[in-house]
């Protein structure tokens, strides 16, 4: 995670910086192509004979580009950025979620992960990861629907979107834990 990882998405609109429409769904290939192009323009090689000031500006721009890319690449952070852009709601703080049904399901998933880790069941972990990944895809689709609805002249219901982004965050965490469990088994 970058140093700005937990900081609220600041002033600079990451979509704007990348010349993209502020949409939740984006083309990942297009995004990484733009990243390469933009990093080219601020590459230190181009500034060898420039003034210190220009070199510094190029460095700062590089950081800005990388930070924005970090936001755009992550579905969670991209959704948070979009929500903040459209409603001003900052969702980067520490909150407590109290949705019992969803949390019970998450607890059961973590228990399953724990069992698979203890048994060092690599195949089980891999199919479990697939299961969580497909839940993640569904969750991304749900979030996208909310953002789409807003385009049809409806008020954006930030509370509802937030709740869906939170769910995505828990799924992300489970996937990270699966990876860690797999790495531990593989040594």
């Amino acid at each position: 995670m970058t140093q700005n990882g937990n900081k609220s998405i600041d002033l600079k609109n990451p979509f704007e910086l990348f010349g993209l429409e502020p949409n939740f769904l984006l083309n990942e290939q297009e995004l990484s192509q733009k990243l390469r192009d933009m990093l080219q323009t601020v590459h230190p090689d181009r500034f060898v004979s420039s003034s210190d000031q220009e070199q510094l500006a190029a460095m700062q721009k590089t950081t800005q580009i990388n930070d924005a890319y970090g936001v755009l690449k992550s579905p969670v952070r991209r959704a948070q950025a979009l929500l903040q852009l459209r409603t001003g709601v900052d969702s980067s703080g520490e909150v407590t979620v109290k949705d019992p049904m969803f949390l019970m399901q998450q607890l059961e998933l973590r228990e399953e992960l724990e069992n698979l880790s203890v048994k060092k069941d690599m195949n089980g972990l891999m199919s479990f990861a697939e299961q969580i990944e497909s839940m993640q895809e569904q969750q991304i689709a749900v979030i996208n629907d909310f953002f789409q609805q807003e385009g049809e002249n409806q008020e954006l219901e930030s509370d509802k979107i937030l709740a869906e982004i939170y769910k995505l965050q828990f799924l992300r965490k489970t996937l990270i834990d699966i990876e860690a469990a797999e790495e531990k088994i593989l040594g």
Partner: protein
Amino acid sequence: MAYSEKVIDHYENPRNVGSFDKEEEGVGTGMVGAPACGDVMKLQIKVSEDGIIEDAKFKTYGCGSAIASSSLITEWVKGKSIDEAQEIKNTDIAEELALPPVKIHCSVLAEDAIKAAVTDYKEKQDK
């Protein structure tokens, strides 16, 4: 990050890990989660007819501080009335465990969990 000795003690020897049947009478279940770190915490209390918490259990998936916070609070609430249990402040937990500022939210989660468990218990009684 260095954990305090108390956190390590609760993490290595967590008290009261487990579950009660949430349908059982007198059992209150609190489920809470922290999206930013993905921690999930289940805290259950078993309350006697005169409103005293006789037993408490927890199950937490999260960092050492989250596990220690929930372990500690299950110890604290035993023998307390449900009203007393609701008065436990996260700052008391954070102080007892010497949690660093970045881990304060773990103690908040434990406080929210006990409140949720008491609320669940009361709702069940009202039915």
